[in-house]
């Protein structure tokens, strides 16, 4: 085999390996960034749920207060 062909073949082989490696790392990287985006979304939703739970607690307290007030007004009259 002539040295020129050998050099060309080795270069092509190494380039092909790099090509495959870029596809693998690119896919992994895309998956990793997708997972990161999902984690961010989950965090947002958790914050939203926490906010809603707080608001729910406030509304329950308000409801109890109004029920007590209503009961008192019915007993005492308007």
């Amino acid at each position, binding site marked *: 085999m002539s*040295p*020129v062909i050998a*050099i*060309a073949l*080795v*270069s*092509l082989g*190494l*380039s092909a390996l*790099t*090509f495959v*490696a*870029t*596809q693998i*790392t*690119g*896919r992994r*990287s*895309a998956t*990793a*960034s997708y997972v990161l985006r999902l984690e961010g979304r989950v965090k947002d939703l958790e914050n939203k749920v926490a906010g809603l739970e707080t608001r729910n607690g406030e509304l329950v307290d308000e409801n109890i207060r109004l029920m007590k007030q209503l009961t008192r007004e019915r007993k005492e009259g308007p």
Partner: protein
Amino acid sequence: MTLRVLRRCLPFIQRWRTLQVSQAALGKYIILFASLLHLAWAGLLVASAAAGDSTPVHILIQVFGGRWRTAIVLVIVSVSALAFLFTRHRVSSLALAFLLVPQQCVLLMSGEAGIRATVIGHYADGVIRAWPFILSDQMPVILTALLYSLAVLEASIE
């Protein structure tokens, strides 16, 4: 013994991973350097056939079959690599590979020609020199080929 050496090297390796000279990644400068080098080689090949006798270019002329074809190939691989630099965040990993791998292949050919010249003890034009002389002369192209390969892999990681 080996473990002790590794333990001592570990802080340096950890520092190297986070080391950067500027805010920008350095891979783009390697790609830019390779593109400018190939454009310069193409220009010199068009200007004079004598440029084709240098070891890194001679192998390309033999592979691509003539200095005009080589000049055209060099311009194409340079332009595609430069195009990658300006479309970095819009291309897929497949497009990235198609834009950068051709230039890497050309660089590897030049680097391997430099290694072969070192091993056989003479340049492509037949000038005989001591192997350390040839190796020190060809080292920039060889290292550029290696660093370019790393830059391509680095570029594929988001």
